[in-house]
């Protein structure tokens, strides 16, 4: 671990009784959903993590507890450090407090997570779908959502598949 990062991780660890993992010099801190806003505030204001590089989620279906990890990838420009915070959440319709008050970018990224994973962010100012059209059912990036693979049309099955395809009118 980077010598500059070590004290920061220690502070967070003690304050929130968090666990951490290390893999290829990357540090992942595990926090509870209710701690995330406080932790991000602390990191942004005290330790100069002013850039929220990525905000995404990982689905561990069929595992239920925790089903998702919400991932906050933070970057500090001043100290040239990276830190990843992971928030494990349970169940199929999890709720996490929003970070829009801290980072502007969280607005769109959280809408994306709502759209793609169905993770709700409490207190989000604009909870609409962002990428998929309104009225879509389900959340595409969940592991139980089908890929939607269609059989390609080749010479030998051209007619068979052609029958199922919609043909537009002139």
């Amino acid at each position: 671990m980077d010598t500059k990062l070590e004290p920061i991780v220690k502070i967070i660890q003690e304050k929130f009784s968090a666990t951490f993992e290390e893999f290829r010099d990357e540090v992942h801190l595990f926090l509870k959903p209710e701690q995330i806003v406080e932790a991000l505030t602390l990191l942004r204001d005290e330790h100069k993590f002013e850039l929220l590089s990525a905000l995404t989620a990982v689905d561990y279906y069929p595992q239920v507890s925790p089903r998702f990890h919400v991932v906050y990838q933070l970057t500090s420009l001043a100290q040239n450090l990276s830190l990843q915070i992971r928030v494990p959440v349970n169940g199929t319709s999890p709720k996490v407090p929003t970070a829009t008050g801290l980072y502007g970018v969280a607005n769109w990224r959280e809408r994306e997570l709502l759209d793609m994973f169905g993770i709700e962010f409490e207190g989000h100012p604009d909870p609409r779908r962002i990428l998929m059209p309104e009225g879509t059912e389900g959340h595409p990036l969940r592991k139980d959502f089908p890929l939607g693979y269609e059989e390609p049309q080749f010479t030998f099955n051209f007619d068979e598949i052609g029958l199922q395809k919609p043909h537009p009118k002139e």
Partner: protein
Amino acid sequence: MTQIEEVSIEQFKHLVSARALTGETMLLNMGPQHPSTHGVLRLLLELDGEIIVNCIPDIGYLHTGIEKNMEAKTYQKAEVMTDRLDYMNPMGNNLAYVMAVEKLVDLDVPVRAQGLRVILVELQRIASHLVWLGSVGLDLAAMSMFLYCFRERELILDIFELVSGQRMMTTYFRPGGVWRDVPVEFEKAVRDFLKIFPARIDEYEKLLTKNPLFLDRMLGLGILDSATALSYGVTGPTLRASGVNWDLRKARPYSGYEQYDFNVPVLTEGDTYARYLVHIQEFRESLKIIEQALNKLPFGPVHSENRKFVPPPRSEIGVSMESLIHHFKLWTEGFPAPKASVYSAVESPRGELGLLLEGDGGPKPLRVHLRTPSFDNLSVLSHIVNGHLVADLVAILASIDIVLGDIDR
């Protein structure tokens, strides 16, 4: 399925001002088919006369499901998807992806492959900035810029075709190195380009930099201060035009960038013109890097000898049973990656292109998240256009350099 649903103002009530509800201001759709939205971006504008009161971007018209599709493919096969992500920067996307895979499975890359990667990625940066400059010119009715820029872009695409056989979607970088060594004509082609291009940059500058018509449409528009930029995750030339010196090539050198001597252009004005100047200066810096990398390019292998991840050459398959087994295993099953997650980022022409790659112990990734720079750069748009004219929106939108494939994924 092909019917458009009617949308009521109820959906956007919390985003527009109260005056829109009474009909005092007008709501206007710009896009998804509009010549200056650079693709299929839809902007819902609230207008007071010609002044923009609110701008609500609506994205997703090019949502391709790349992340989901990559999760259904093995590590080698998923790479073709990354080309089509940000289609101005296929080489850079390949680099971000192969670097993430190399980090995940801990794979070494030979020095020659790293040098080649740097040369090609910098050429790609120039090509991407050329398309940007051309389309900025087109949007501001300077059509000759478009013709000049695409003329030079063809030179770069010819080099790509030389090394990979494809003009745009090259998939030339592979985990552990590059596809195969460059042909002998490569060096001459790049040196020719290095000789031609500096004079061409001067030509562009002569046409635009002090052109009063261009200045009138660029100066002092869409001012983005550094605090807002950082809060909205803006990176790349847009951030550097706002006075923040942050370039991943300098801050966290990868692929041997630490050996090369180059500057990071930083301006403090934060307006569209500053963004234009940063792009122009980056042309010159990229040329510097290419020249040094070409001079330093050593001879040697171009991919790793680790046969568990890199397929053996064709010639070996006929004589070695082991190679045949490796070849078969790699192209049917793929290679397994550990159950862990890595985040690896590169500086794309638009900003920080990050890749969160999580393996589950098998040959397919559990999660691929692409942190694409245009997505975040666009999210700041609604904060910098308010109070400007609709005609200026075109210049501002062009200057932040968005690619819709990059946004919608």
